[in-house]
């Protein structure tokens, strides 16, 4: 039975697939897929050197603090960071009173709700609070940035590339795709998936003043905030790699021993 029906079923699927293939090939030949502006002009993130790249890489707290400053002074006007609590900033090297002060002075206040009266109110943020969400009324919907570097391919480099990638639309693009002109209110950026995004270039040279004296070029700010957002997405990165080396070292020793033990045991059998 199996040997009778088996080949029939196999041929059935194979013929159906070849039928699909034939139709697909016919369409591919008669109506070749037109290239799109996204396909031709979208760029992969730039190569960036970050302190945390590679198996031995670690966060640079100075850089993370600068990145936090950029986030606080620029990004936080529109973008939330709801997975991060103020207390987590202690990881960046801030002391307890500093964390407390940052939370207290945060522009967006924590929302309160009085269950008795039904009144909504506000209070200062506490270290235990998460950074409060921002409600943005303008055009577009700014994504929460907590996990942005893990939610994009090569996320750290992507954030850096996007922030430094604003430019005029290439003449070549407009020549090939006259319809693809960046619409009013959007901004051209080849690192963004569909090339046009609602966010205008957010960083300007000297837009923030770094406490540690680092020159706040757009490039520097972009790098710093990309590093900071890598930390917000993967705060345990340092501990992960550190644990990883200890585990791998142990396993390597154990495996060498296991190999020798296996050889010992099998020495009797050959």
């Amino acid at each position, binding site marked *: 039975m199996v040997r009778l029906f088996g080949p029939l079923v196999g041929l059935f699927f194979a013929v159906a697939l070849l039928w699909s293939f034939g139709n697909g090939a016919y369409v591919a030949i008669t109506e070749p897929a037109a290239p799109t502006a996204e396909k031709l002009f979208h760029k992969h993130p730039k190569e960036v050197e970050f302190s945390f790249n590679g198996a031995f890489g670690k966060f640079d707290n100075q850089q993370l603090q600068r990145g936090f400053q950029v986030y606080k002074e620029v990004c936080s006007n529109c973008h939330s960071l709801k997975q991060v609590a103020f207390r987590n900033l202690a990881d960046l090297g801030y002391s307890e009173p500093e964390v407390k002060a940052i939370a207290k002075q945060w522009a967006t206040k924590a929302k309160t709700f009085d269950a008795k009266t039904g009144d909504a109110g506000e209070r200062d943020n506490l270290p235990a609070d998460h950074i409060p969400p921002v409600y943005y009324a303008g055009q577009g919907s700014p994504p929460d940035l907590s996990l942005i570097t893990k939610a994009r391919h090569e996320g750290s480099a992507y954030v850096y590339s996007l922030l430094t990638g604003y430019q005029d639309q290439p003449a070549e693009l407009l020549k090939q795709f006259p319809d693809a002109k960046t619409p009013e209110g959007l901004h051209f950026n080849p690192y963004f998936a569909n090339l046009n995004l609602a966010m205008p270039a957010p960083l300007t040279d000297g837009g923030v003043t770094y406490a540690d004296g680092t020159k706040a070029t757009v490039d520097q700010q972009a790098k710093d905030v990309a590093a900071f957002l890598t930390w917000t997405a993967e705060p345990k990165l340092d501990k992960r790699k550190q644990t990883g080396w200890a585990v791998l070292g142990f396993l390597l020793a154990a*495996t060498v021993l296991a*190999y020798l033990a296996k050889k010992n045991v099998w020495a009797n059998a050959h």
Partner: protein
Amino acid sequence: MSFPWANEYKPSHPLMQWLDEKLPLPRFVYNAVGAGYPVPRNLNYMWNFGVLAGVCLMIQIVTGVILAMHYAANTGVAFDSVEHIMRDVNWGWMLRYAHANGASAFFVVVYIHIFRGFFYSSYKAPREMIWLLGVVIFLLMMATAFMGYVLPWGQMSFWGAKVITGLFGAIPLVGEPLQQWLLGGFSPDQAALNRFFSLHFLLPFVLAGVIILHIWALHIPGSSNPTGVEVKQESDTVPFHPYYTAKDGFGLGVFLILYCAVLFFAPNALGHPDNYIAANPLSTPAHIVPEWYFWPFYAILRAFTSDFFFIPAKLMGVLAMFSAILVWFFLPWLDTSPVRSGHYRPLFRKFFYLLLVDVAVLGYCGGAPAAEPFVMISQIAAAYYFLHFLVILPLVSSIEKPQPLPYSITEAVLGTDEGAVLNANPAAA
């Protein structure tokens, strides 16, 4: 059952003797994976993967039960509760990465285990039942993995659930009510998330049960071996312990090194970035793909782009995808060659390697965007896949001339076997 020369469990300590009389659990273990289980002496490293698969299941159950202590199966907080695990729970990041990458490791190991079975025809009599149970295990694994991937309630979780349950909608007449029944609604939501969590917790234990049957069935004929020649005599075997416990220990070490390297240094390499975006029922990701271990089957699903006579393309895709696995159930009866091992089957071997490449190509196409040339490539590759199992294997079995087999495992290992001589000359016995 075992071979007559199997070592017998003889407890020397009075306590163990007492235990053996009341509840012979140590005897059971001794006969299952101890010195009481004679195993062919010529197993190669391909035979390590069964034990490794068992280890993977244990890693998944232990880390999974722990994650369930911190996870909340509620659409409002599921995504945040996973981030809570990653950030606030002690060692939570490690446990979650261990579980997520543990699923991948489990599939890597099981795929190698399955292809070992293909090459050495481990499915042939008298081991059909082991194989059939193995396919059931694989199906359960797929269901478990799919539901587990929904739990973080990210974009891929949500849209994966939508697409996969949508497959059932392709079934004529009952499709749509069936889909609604599966989801407990019109679209994945609270009801679906909660039941997936419940089933994701349950199925691994069902899996463990079927694995016990799989091992039970294995102990009836005993393990197969790279020559495919059955065990004839005591010199063909060694006791499982210490020989294969030692070998499996070394294999486990190598496995753990690779697994931990991914876990600690590239924990998101096998995942999709979109799953770090919370589920949004109003916005579909540009490119929905399942996890890598489903890619070959996903490619088969998508390969059907034209209606075939009166059968809609979508239904064909669903039928083909399920058939691609169900065909394995019939393998023991499709491949009728009396020779088991691919080492002695030159023609079969060529097609085996072709299948290996074919599945890799299908996998690549399944992960690629649904655009040309990937669709056309996957159509050819999927056609070969079905032809391989249903047409080529039966054909090869009947036309191939296998190479001569060794008389016994002992001869294969040592070059000579006194038994072969004795056998040729009955008077000497």
